[in-house]
C-alpha cells in the first residue's frame, strides 16, 4: 500500500511535469544578410549560431530553441519587415543576426523600445554604443571603431611615422578612420575616400605610391578589399609598403585573394589558432560540419548563441522574466571562444584585441595567425555617452 502510494505520487509528479517539459521551444529571430555580395557574412553568422544549437541537440543552455532565419538583403526596409514578422507573428522575444549597421539602425531603435532583446553578432554602430544605447541591445562582437583602434595602436607601437589612409566614403568608413586616428600618433601621408563598392583602385594606388608612406592603413570590407589587395600586389608595392587594416582578410576572402594577401596585418578579438578548450571544440566542430575554416564572423555567431543560452538557462527558458533575462545577459556567464569576455556599461564587450598576420596554411591555402596582443580589456570610445 505504501509502495503503491509512493508509486502513485511519483506518477502524478511525472504527469504534472509533462506539460512543463513539453514547453514550446524558445523562438529566436535571426535577421541577417544572406543575399548580395556580402551574403557570406550572414552565412557565417548563421552557421556559427546553428552549430551551437546543434552541439546541444536543438537546445541552448539546456532550453529547446527554434531558430527562424530571414535574409535582409542588406536593405533596412527588409530588416524592418522581418522584425515585424518575427515579433508580431512568431512572438519572438530575441532577435539576432544583424550584420550591417544600416540595417541595425533601422531595426534596433524601434524594437528595443518594444521590449525585444537584440543580441547583435556583428553590427555595432557608434550610435548604438553611445547616445542611442539601450538596455535591451547587446553586442557580442565589437564596436565598429574597435578593430581600427587596434591597428592604430599597432602602427604607433611599430613606430610608423607616416601612414597612408584609404577607406570608402560612408559612415563605417569614416568611423573606422576615426578609430585608427584615435590611437595612431604619427603623421598622415595622405587620406583617400573611395566610392562604396568601387572596383578599380589604380588611381588610389598611384596616389599612394607618390606619397611614399611607411605603411598603409586600409578599411575596405568585402569585395572592395579583394579588388584592392589584388591590384596592390600587382603594383609591386606590397614588397615595400606594408598593408594593415581591420577588414578584407577573413578566411573566406583570403581564399579569393590568395598570395596577394600574404603578410597583411589585420585585427581581431579572435583567431582560429587560439589554444583554449572552448575554441578548439568550436573550430573542430565547425570544420567537421561545414568543411571550411570558421571566420571571426562565425565565431561571433557561435558566441551570440552561447550567450543567449547562458541567459536562457538562468531564467529556465521563461522569457516573461525579462529583467532576470537581461541581468543574466549582462553577466555573460559563458565561455567565449575568444577567451575573456564581459560587458561594459553600454552592453558592448570589454575584451582583448590582437593583431593577426596572413600566412600560408598547411593545406596550401591562407589563414590568419596570431601575431601579438595589442589591447587588454578594451572597450569603445562611446561608452561615456551612454546613459542607460
Amino acid at each position, binding site marked *: 500500500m505504501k509502495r503503491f502510494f509512493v508509486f502513485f505520487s511519483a506518477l502524478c509528479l511525472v504527469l504534472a511535469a509533462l506539460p512543463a517539459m513539453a514547453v514550446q521551444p524558445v523562438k529566436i529571430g535571426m535577421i541577417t544578410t544572406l*543575399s*548580395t555580395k556580402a551574403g557570406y557574412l550572414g552565412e557565417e553568422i548563421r552557421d556559427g549560431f546553428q552549430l551551437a544549437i546543434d552541439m546541444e541537440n536543438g537546445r541552448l543552455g539546456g532550453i529547446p530553441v527554434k531558430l527562424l532565419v530571414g535574409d535582409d538583403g542588406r536593405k533596412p526596409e527588409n530588416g524592418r519587415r522581418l522584425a515585424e514578422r518575427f515579433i508580431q507573428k512568431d512572438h519572438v522575444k530575441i532577435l539576432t543576426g544583424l550584420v550591417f549597421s544600416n540595417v541595425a539602425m533601422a531595426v534596433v531603435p524601434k524594437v528595443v523600445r518594444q521590449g525585444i532583446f537584440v543580441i547583435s553578432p556583428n553590427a555595432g554602430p557608434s550610435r548604438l554604443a553611445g547616445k542611442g544605447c539601450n538596455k535591451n541591445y547587446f553586442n557580442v562582437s565589437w564596436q565598429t571603431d574597435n578593430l581600427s583602434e587596434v591597428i592604430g595602436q599597432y602602427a604607433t607601437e611599430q613606430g610608423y611615422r607616416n601612414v597612408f589612409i584609404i577607406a570608402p*566614403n560612408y559612415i563605417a568608413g569614416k568611423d573606422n578612420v576615426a578609430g585608427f586616428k584615435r590611437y595612431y600618433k604619427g603623421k598622415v601621408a595622405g587620406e583617400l575616400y*573611395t*566610392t562604396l563598392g568601387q572596383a*578599380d583602385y589604380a588611381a588610389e594606388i*598611384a596616389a599612394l605610391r607618390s606619397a611614399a608612406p611607411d605603411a598603409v592603413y586600409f578599411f575596405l570590407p568585402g569585395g*572592395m578589399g579583394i579588388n584592392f589587395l589584388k591590384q596592390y600586389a600587382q603594383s609591386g608595392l606590397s614588397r615595400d609598403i606594408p598593408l594593415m587594416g581591420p577588414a578584407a582578410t577573413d578566411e573566406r576572402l583570403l581564399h*579569393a*585573394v590568395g598570395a596577394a594577401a600574404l603578410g597583411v596585418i589585420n585585427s581581431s578579438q579572435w583567431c582560429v589558432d587560439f589554444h583554449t578548450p572552448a575554441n578548439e571544440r568550436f573550430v573542430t566542430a565547425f570544420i567537421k560540419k561545414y568543411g571550411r575554416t570558421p571566420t571571426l564572423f562565425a565565431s561571433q555567431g557561435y558566441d551570440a548563441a552561447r550567450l543567449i543560452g547562458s541567459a536562457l538557462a538562468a531564467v529556465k527558458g521563461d522569457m516573461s522574466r525579462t529583467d532576470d533575462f537581461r541581468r543574466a545577459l549582462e553577466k555573460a556567464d559563458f565561455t567565449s571562444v575568444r577567451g575573456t569576455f564581459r560587458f561594459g556599461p553600454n552592453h558592448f564587450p570589454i575584451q582583448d584585441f590582437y593583431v593577426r598576420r596572413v600566412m600560408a596554411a598547411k593545406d596550401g591555402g591562407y589563414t590568419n595567425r596570431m601575431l601579438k596582443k595589442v589591447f587588454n580589456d578594451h572597450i569603445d570610445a562611446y561608452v561615456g555617452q551612454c546613459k542607460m
Partner: protein
Amino acid sequence: MLVFEQILNGLQLGVMLFLMSAGLTLVFGIMRVINLAHGSFYMIGAYVAATVTARTGSFLLGVAAALPAAALTGMLVEFLILRRLYHRDHLDQVLATFGLIFFFNELIRMIWGRSPLFMEVPTRLAGSVELFGGLQYPVYRLAIILVGILVALFLYLLFSRTRLGMRIRAGATNREMIGALGVNIPLLYTLIFGLGTLLAGLAGVMAGPLFAVEAGMGDSVLILTFVVIVIGGIGSVRGAFIGAVLVGLVDTLARAFLPELFRLLLASPSSADRMGAALASMSVYIFMALVLSVKPAGLFPARE
C-alpha cells in the same frame, strides 16, 4: 609624372569599359534591344574562367572555356527570350533583362556558393615593368589595354571589310530587304548577340585577376557601361570606344585630383576629402548629364 600615370590608369579603365560596352552597343545598334543582363555575361565569363583556371592551372584554358560559355549562354538567352522582344518597346526589354539579372546572380550563388572565387594574374603577365621616367606599371594592365585595342581593331575590320559585317549593317538598316535577299535574319541576330555576350565574357575574364569574382560583380560595372554607350551615342562602336576612354579618364582623374582640389578650396581638410570623394563618385554622371544636355543623342549618334 603622377598626372601621366593617372592618365594611363584612366585609359586602362576606359579600355576595360570599352570591352563591356562594345558588345552592348553592338546589340543595341543592330537589334534595338536594351540588355541590362549584359553584366551577367561578364560575371559568367569571370566565374567560368576562374573555375577552369583553378582546375587546370592554365589561364589560356580558362579564357578558352569562358568565351564560349558566355557566348553560348547569350545565344540561348537570345533564342529563348530576347528574340521575342525585338518589336516590343524598351520598357519590356529593360524589365525582362532586369529579371535575368536576378536569375543569374542567384543561380551563380547557388552553383558556386557565397564566397568570392580566386583568380590570379597569369605568371607571365605578373609584376610590373618600368616605362620611361622610372614609372612602374603593372604588366597585366598594359595587357588589358592591348586586348582592348585589338578588339576595337577586330570590330572595325569585321564591319568594314567582311561579308558578314556588311550583312549585319544591311540588316540593321533594312531588315525586310536583307531577309528577302535570303539572309537568315534570326540566325544572324543570334550570332550577333552571341558576339556581344562573348565580348562581355572577355571583359569578365580580363577583370577576374584584377577584381573580386563574386555574384553581382556585373551590376556595378553595368551602370558605367550604360553611361559609356549613352555618352558615345548608342549603337556606335566608335562612339563606345571614345565614350569609354572619356569615362575612364573622367572617373580616374576625378578620383585622383578632386580631393586635392577641394583641400585647396576648403578650410577643413577632412570635410574637403569627403566632399571631394562624394563629387568624384558623381563625376561620371555629371559628365553624362553635361554631354546629354549639349548633345541629347550622345557624341556619335549611329543613325537618325
